[in-house]
Structure formats: C-alpha cells, structure tokens
C-alpha cells in the first residue's frame, strides 16, 4: 500500500507542479487553482462518504479513520478553495465576500463538515462515535452536496458559468488551457488523497506506538 501511495505522491507532485510554470497575472488563471480545489473537495468528501458506508456495513476502526481523514483533507481543500475564490473575487468583483449564491453554498458545506467534527468530538465511546458520525456523514453528503450544485443554478449569480457569464466551456475552447486544467484537477485530487493518507498513516503509527507502550508497561 505504501508503494502505491508513493507512486500517487510522485505523480501528484509532478502533475501539481505543471500549472505553477504558467502563472501570469491574469485572473483566468484562477481556473488552475480555484476550480481544482472544489473538484478535489467534492472528490474527497465523496470518498469520505463511501468509507462511511463501508463503515456501517463492516464496522472497523480503519474505515472510520479513512472516513474522518478524508473529510479533514476535504475541509483543507474547502478552505483553500474559499481563499483562492476570495482572492479572485477581490480583483474581479471588488470585494472578498458578498453573499453570491455560490459563496453561500460553500459556506453551508463548510458548516456541515464543521458540525461533523463537532459531533465526533462530543461522543466518547469510539465505536458509537464511528457509527453516529458515519450516519451523519452520509446524510449530510447525500442531502447537501447535490443541493450545492442545484440551488445556486436557480438563483442569479455573478460566478462564472452562470447568469450569462462565460464559464468553463468558453475557457475550454482554448485547448492549451485544457491541457493544463485537466492535469491540474487530477494532480490536486491525487494530492488531496495523499494528504489524507499521510494523516491516516500518522494516526496508525500513533496507535501502534501507544499499543507498544501499553504492552511494555
């Protein structure tokens, strides 16, 4: 598994480096950073929900660890996506935050996963924590994430891709950008999974160490 993860990381490292070479001061370039963040976040949360389902089917500490670590990495991507989006909005819209429907949706997602972590903290029994948080994870993912894609489309938004603003398709017509954009998405998603795997492995090592300590005493 470590070998597979290492190949992941090297691939991600090379791929994620690609867009950095192309930085010029144009706001379209936010596409390379901002958009992959959201793709990565959704991918990570999706993986987290899958592990939550697995955890309900066959309860195990590993599944719970995977689920929570993936959610952690997803939160990191959400934060980065929000920051990159705010920087972009500052230059294009003039303010960092102005309650655009997309921003509201992002804030709601953020709240959902913050609630998930609060839930994890407030249950003492680890078995019960795994089960309850898995249920909430699935519930929140299935109930919220689709809505974040649907509801903003119903409202007027200044975000690119809606309300007559040029979106992906216009940018994608330029095939050179597509060459950079798709690897960037893949690279960031893989990096995200690598982040999660780092956390998982450190946790496993910590547990192993405490077991050894326990045995020695």
């Amino acid at each position, binding site marked *: 598994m470590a070998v597979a993860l290492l190949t992941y990381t090297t691939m991600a490292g090379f791929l994620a480096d690609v867009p950095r070479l192309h930085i010029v001061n144009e706001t379209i370039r936010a596409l390379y950073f901002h958009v992959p963040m959201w793709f990565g976040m959704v991918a990570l949360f999706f993986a987290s929900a899958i592990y939550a389902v697995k955890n309900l089917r066959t309860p195990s500490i590993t599944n719970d660890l995977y689920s929570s670590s993936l959610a952690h990495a997803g939160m990191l991507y959400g934060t980065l996506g929000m920051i990159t989006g705010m920087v972009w909005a500052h230059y294009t819209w003039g303010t960092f935050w102005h309650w655009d429907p997309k921003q509201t949706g992002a804030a709601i997602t953020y709240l959902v996963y913050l*609630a998930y972590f609060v*839930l994890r903290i407030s249950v003492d029994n680890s*078995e*019960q924590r795994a089960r309850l948080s898995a249920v909430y994870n699935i*519930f929140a993912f*299935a109930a919220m994430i689709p*809505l974040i894609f649907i509801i903003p489309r*119903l409202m007027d938004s200044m975000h690119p891709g809606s309300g007559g603003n040029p979106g992906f398709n216009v940018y994608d017509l330029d095939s050179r950008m597509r060459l950079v954009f798709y690897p960037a998405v893949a690279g960031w998603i893989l990096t995200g999974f690598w982040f999660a795997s780092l956390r998982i492995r450190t946790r496993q090592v910590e547990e192993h160490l405490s077991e050894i300590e326990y045995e020695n005493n």
Partner: protein
Amino acid sequence: MTWLYIVRKEWTLELRKKSILSGLLLYLFSIVFILYLTFSQGVIQPLVWSALLWITVLFTAINTIAKSFIAERRGIFIYFYYAVSARDFIIGKLAYNALLCTLMSTVGYGFFILFLEDPVQDHGIFLLTILLASLGFAFSLTLISSIAAKTNNSHVLMAVLSFPIIISVLLMAIKVTKNCLDGLGWEASNDELLILLAINSLVAALSYLLFPYIWRS
C-alpha cells in the same frame, strides 16, 4: 402496519401527558405575542413578516422534534427495541413528527394572522409551502435528533447538526413565500415546490435507510 400503532401510541401519550403539547403551543403563542408587542407600533414589511414567520416555524419545529428522541426515557427505547423493528419504528416516528410539525406550523400561521397581519396573496400555494416545509423539517430533524440523543450535549448538538441541513429547505420556502407575497401564481413557484418535494423524499429515504444503524446501539 406496525408503524400506525406507533403513531397512535405517540398521539395517545401526547394527549395523556398534555404537558408537552400545551407547552409547545404556549411557546408558539408567546413568540407571536412578543412579536406583536414589538411591532404593534408600525407596519410590518412583507419581507420582515416572512422572516419572522419562518424563524418562528423553524424554532418551533426544532423544539417539537428534539423531544421525540432526546426527552424519552431509556427504558422505552429498550422496550421498543424488542417490540418492533427499526424500520417500522422510524416510519412511525417520521409520520408522527410530520403530523405534529405540520400542525404546529399551521397553528403558528394562524397566530400570525390573528396577531400580526396576513400579507399573503396566494393562500393555496402558501399553505402547500408550509406543508412541504414542515415535512422537510420533520424528516430531516428526526434523524438528527436520534443522533444527537446519543451524545453528551444533545441540545447544543441538535442545533449545530440540523442547521446546515435545514438551510436548503428554508431557502426554498423563503423563495416561494416571497412569490406568494407578491402574488405571482403557480408558474413562478413551480420549480421551488418541486425541489422541496425532492428534498423531502430524499431526506425521508435517507432517514429510513440510515436509522437502523443508530438504533442498534
């Protein structure tokens, strides 16, 4: 039809105890009364009216449903665990909470008409919205309350876990309310009502599927 028995049992218990139902009605009444005292001087803008109504309905719904799992004694759960299957139990709870929630919101709307004014122009659509929103509140809050009941600080957690999930229902309801206040007719609110219906069925299905895992502990 085991779930019907549960609905009937809840209802008879509710009538027998009286304290909860009358407490909730009084809670609703005092909110509206305070609003009346606050706004008796001037005219309420329609938008402010809708905000007040939905906040009242939301808080009443949270209080109504929070008691369905949090306030029950442990012994009752152990009895039900042996007596009925988890699926029947959750259907019964969902149905009963939906009933109670709809009742509460309709009564709340009645109080609003009585004490404040009634700026709604399309009563049919508005009542349908109230019905759908109450169902949405009931379905999503029931599962959340069963999760929260298992934790240490259940009342705080109830609010934290439910708000992100509720927001989407609330957003749609507020949009339709605005259309009703402007008297725009069915065509304007069709999409939103359909989405509300979709959210409700999604959330109800998820609760049905996920509840057995919580029930086990």
